[in-house]
Structure formats: C-alpha cells, structure tokens
C-alpha cells in the first residue's frame, strides 16, 4: 500500500517535472523563435508568469460541462504523465509504461478538452475541435505504423524496454536504424505538437484560436498546464522511441531540448495547411514511407 502511494507520489513528481521542464523549454524557445523573427522576445520564465497570472484571475464559466471538461482534460494528462519514464531507471510504475497507455490515455485529456470547448457554445470552438480530431486522424496513423514496427522489432511495448533495447546495443538508435520511419515520426510529432504546418486547429486567423476561444482565467490556466504536460509527454515519447531514451537526466534534458528546439525552428518558417491538406499530406508520403519502412524492417529484416 505504502509502496503504491510512494509510486503515485513519484508519478506526480514526474508530472510536475514535466510541467516545469516544458514550461521553461517553451520560454527558451520563444526566445529562440523571437531571434529568428528579428524580435527580442520575452523572458524565459514568461510562460510561468502567464500561467500563474491566469490561475489567479477570476474567470467565467459556461456551465458544468465547461468546468468538468477542463478537470477531465488536466486529470487525464496528469495521469498519463505519471506513467512517463524520464530515464530508463527513473520511472514511476516500472513495467507498466506501455506505449498504448500514452496513446490512449492522452486521448482522455483531449476528449475532456474537446468536450469542454464544445460545451462553451461557441461554434469556433467546435470547428477547432473538429480540426483537431481530423488532424489527429492524419498524424496518428503513420506514427503508429512506425511505432508498431519498433514494437515488433524489440518485442516489447514498454517504453523503457524499447529505450533499453537501444542503449544496450541490440539496436541502433531507431532514428538511425529506421531512417524512413524517423522522418515520418518527426512529421507526426510536429502534428502532435500542433506545430506549423499542422497548426490548423489553432489557426487564429481562421477560427480565432479554435478550441481555446472561450477560455480565460483559471480554466485557461489549467489548459495551459495541460498543454505543457502534453508536449512533455509527446516529446519524451519521441526521445524514448527514437533517440535511445536516456541513461541520465542530463542526457534526457539535452535530447529533449534538441528535439523541441529543432522542431520549433523548422515550424517557424512554414505556413499553415488547410485541414484537408493536412490529411492528404499525411496519408500520402508519410504513410507510404512508414509502410515501406515497416515492410523493409519486418519482412525483409533490414535494420541498420
């Protein structure tokens, strides 16, 4: 019993760590992006300030589903983050960090947010949710094919298991071992993070920030927290799956930073697709590459 409570406490620690890490990373990357755009940019801790300001403000609510959805969203994401390994040894629930948990439990958070947004009664929010779900349909399929290839190769769907398989030398880092798959995964990760050109569901100029349009105050603050943790989960997944995980926290931070910063830089010089272009894009080359990669790796056994 005590052990379980310890684990849960540990898990909450991971979630908090993820929040702090990503919020700081977000701030730093705002700075980097600003330099790219000939601006000075805000302080690196600006995101913390924003969130705490929002949390402290008095907000408005559109009814119980509006609040309930926010709680469900944040709760789902915190729950997901608690399973996330940081390094191969720092993991709250050892052996239970099944990849599918991340894919599906994260969906609870998404669903909660979608529900809350639709519950606000603003049509733009519903359109945003529609776009978010459609984008999800687009990027998940190629990504899952690549990850399934990895699971088939390593024989485990545990994240630490996959990371350890790369560290012990059974496989190269999968970004090298499965080059095509890696490219696909990068694109999918951009979709997951809502980076341009797949930022369609935010699209301020079209649907006024989509799902977020009605929020303010603590609800928005909580959604910010949720958003930061979501990004933490997704980038960490990527690190563990393709970059060989991490032996130490320092390595994890470095890899995390590199992945996030590179994506951020790439994203900043691209425009935004329309929603159907997102779908056709992902179902054209990335899916094709993913399938080719899977065929090569599984049926022919050619893994570098």
């Amino acid at each position, binding site marked *: 019993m005590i052990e379980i409570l310890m684990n849960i406490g540990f898990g909450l620690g991971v979630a908090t760590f993820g929040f702090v890490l990503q919020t700081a990373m977000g701030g730093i990357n705002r700075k980097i992006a600003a330099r790219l755009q000939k601006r000075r940019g805000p302080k690196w801790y600006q995101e913390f300030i924003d969130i705490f300001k929002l949390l402290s403000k008095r907000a408005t609510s559109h009814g119980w589903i509006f609040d309930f959805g926010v709680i469900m969203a944040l709760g789902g994401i915190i729950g997901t983050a608690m399973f996330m390994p940081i390094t191969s040894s720092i993991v709250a629930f050892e052996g239970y960090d099944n990849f599918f948990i991340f894919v599906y439990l994260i969906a609870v958070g998404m669903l909660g947010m979608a529900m809350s947004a639709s519950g606000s009664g603003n049509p733009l929010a519903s359109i945003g949710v529609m776009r978010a779900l459609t984008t999800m349909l687009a990027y998940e399929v190629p990504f899952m094919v690549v990850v399934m290839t990895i699971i088939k190769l390593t024989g485990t769907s545990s994240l630490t298991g996959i990371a350890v398989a790369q560290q012990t030398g059974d496989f190269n880092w999968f970004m090298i071992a499965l080059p095509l798959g890696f490219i696909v995964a990068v694109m999918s990760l951009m979709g997951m993070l809502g980076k341009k050109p797949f930022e369609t569901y935010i699209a301020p100029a*079209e649907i006024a920030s989509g799902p977020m349009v009605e929020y303010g105050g603590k609800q928005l603050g909580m959604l910010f927290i949720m958003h930061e943790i979501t990004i933490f989960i997704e980038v960490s997944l990527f690190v563990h799956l393709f970059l060989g995980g991490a032996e130490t926290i320092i390595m994890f931070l470095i890899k995390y930073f590199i992945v996030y910063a590179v994506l951020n830089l790439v994203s900043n010089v691209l425009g935004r697709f329309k929603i159907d272009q997102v779908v056709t894009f992902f179902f054209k080359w990335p899916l094709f590459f993913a399938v080719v990669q899977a065929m090569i790796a599984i049926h022919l056994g050619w893994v570098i």
Partner: protein
Amino acid sequence: MRELKLFLGPQHPGMHGNASVHMFVEGDIIVRSYLLPGMLHRGFEKGMERHSWVNNLALIPRVCVVEPDINEMAYAMGAEKLAGIEVPERAHWIRMIILELARISIHMMAYGGLGSPTGNYTLMYHAHADRNSILDIFEQISGHRIYHQYIVPGGVRKDLPVGIEKDIHAFLDDLESRYTEYRDLGIENPTLVKRIKDTIMLPESVVWELGVTGVGMRSAVNKEYDIRKVMPYALYDQVEFEVPVSDYSDARCRVDIKLKEVVQSIGIIRQCLAKMPEGPVRVPMAQGQSMRWTLPKGHVYSVVESSRGEFGYYMVSNGGTHPYRIGVRGASYPQGLLGIEKYLPGTRIDDAALWVDTMGVCSPEIDR
C-alpha cells in the same frame, strides 16, 4: 439545412481593420456573407466639409490608415489644380520618393500580412521590420511615422534632411539583397504555395463587373493599366518602370505582383534620387493667414495609383474657406463591399481571411 453564423472581425485575428464580415456557413463553405461596416465610421467626408482647406490636412491621412500618403497627394493635387498653383520640380521628385517609399511600405505590409492568415509569422515579422525601417526614414523626413502631413498643396512641407539619400540607398540595397529570401519565405514556400496557389480566384469578368482596379485588375486582365502610366501625375512620365501584369489571378499571383512592384518602386526611387534637382520645395499656398485660405469656385477630380488601385478625390469648392463637398473613391471599395457579398460565398472559412487579405480590402476606405 441549418446555417451557422460566423463573424470575421472586428476583433477577429484574421481581420485587419475595423470591419466585420458576417458569414453564414454550411460545413466549412460560406453560403452567404456580407460586410458590416460602421465600426470606424467617423464621417471623414462630412468632416472635411466642416474643416477649412488647411485643417483637412490633418484629417485626410486617416482615410486609409496604412497608406496615408496617397490621400495627401490626391488632396494636394486637387487643391493645386483648383487654385492653379505650380509646384516646384524638386517637390515633385520628393513627392514621388515619398509615395514610392509608402508603396514599398504597404506592399511589405501586405506581403507580411500574407503570413498572418497562413500562419507564417516569421514572414510577417520580417516584413514589418522592413516597414519599420521605412517608417524610420519617414520620421527623419517629416518627423512623423504614420501620418506625415508632408505632402501639402504647393509642394512638400520642407526639404529632405541632409544625408537622407544615403539612408534610403542603404535601405533599398538591403531590401533588394533580401528579395530572394523574401520570396523563399513567402510565395515560394511550399507550405504557403499550397494555400495560395490556384485558389481565391479573381476572374476577368469579375474585374469588369465590380470595377476592380490596381493590382487586382492588372493580375487578371493582362493590361498595363496603371495611373502612373496612363495618366501620369507628378513626374512619373520622366522615370522608367515596368508594370507587372498577368492574366491568371489567384492569390499567389496577386501577391507576386505586389512583390514585383516593390522592385519597381525601388527602381523609381533610385531614378528619383538620381534625377532630383536642387531648388525650392514649396510655393506658398496663399497670402496671409493660412486658415483663411480660400480656393476658387470649381470642382476637380484628382486621382493617384494606390497600392490597391485607383484612388481619387473629387473636390468641390464654392469659393469659401471650407470645401463644399469632398468625395473619396476608395480603391478597395468594389471588392470590399460588393465582392464580399457576391464572391466570398463559395470559398471556405479557411480562406476567408486570406480572401480579404489578398483582395486588398482596406476597411476605412469603405467606411469613410
């Protein structure tokens, strides 16, 4: 089938300017839409009647916020014609420099504005940075950044400051050197091309139907119709420039023409700087107190080429200190008011902001 109503503006990030487009949507296709002006209605035309000819100088730039100098030019030209004032040659050259700088500024802003609806904010910030450099130059010349009130009847307010040519040349060289970079970031960017190519069409028939002028017309009908060519004002007949045209007017083509006009303007400014003689820049408008300046009875229509097309002032004087009537032909009036009602339906909500943007709708012109 039930319709959904969406609002584009006035607080919407996709709408620049204080107007609102109401869109009735089925799925994501706009089935009905109309412009709701009035958010900015300050009665410019009526206001001009209540101010003296000179006081109006402070009011007219506000008719188009982003591109104020054309208002000043049109007003000045009209007043000069009514009063029969001959403007010194140097003033003409300076006016052309100002107008072309303003043209670069607004085109850069429009080009950067492409970044906003398509999400490429780097493009937007870069373009705004360049516009900012132009505003710096304006500040040096006139002391103001946006509303300069620099072109006045009778010439320009004062001569160029010393050494400004160097700054202008430096800026133009810098801009020219980054021209390909701009293209790569914007209209050559594959992600943006997907958004703007072969979409938001402006067919020739619509041009004639609505009376679209300027970039919209030149992009669609393959005619070099440019006021600077066909009815040269200032000394545009003494400089050489090419008018970019096309007969396939999608969003990308129109933006492309704007970008080409930036190059064109750079050329014009260089020629102006080279050909500009020394001399006076202003003749006095009238003897005595300027507030009591009266214009002879009569009416005149003065027209200039703005970034969006033919921009004109129709001025009627009854011989008093105040104008009797001033009418403004806003260049984006046809596509802004009629086009939104008639041709925005059928496009998708994704494209609505881009439509308004690339058609060159400037809401204060409509809402004057």
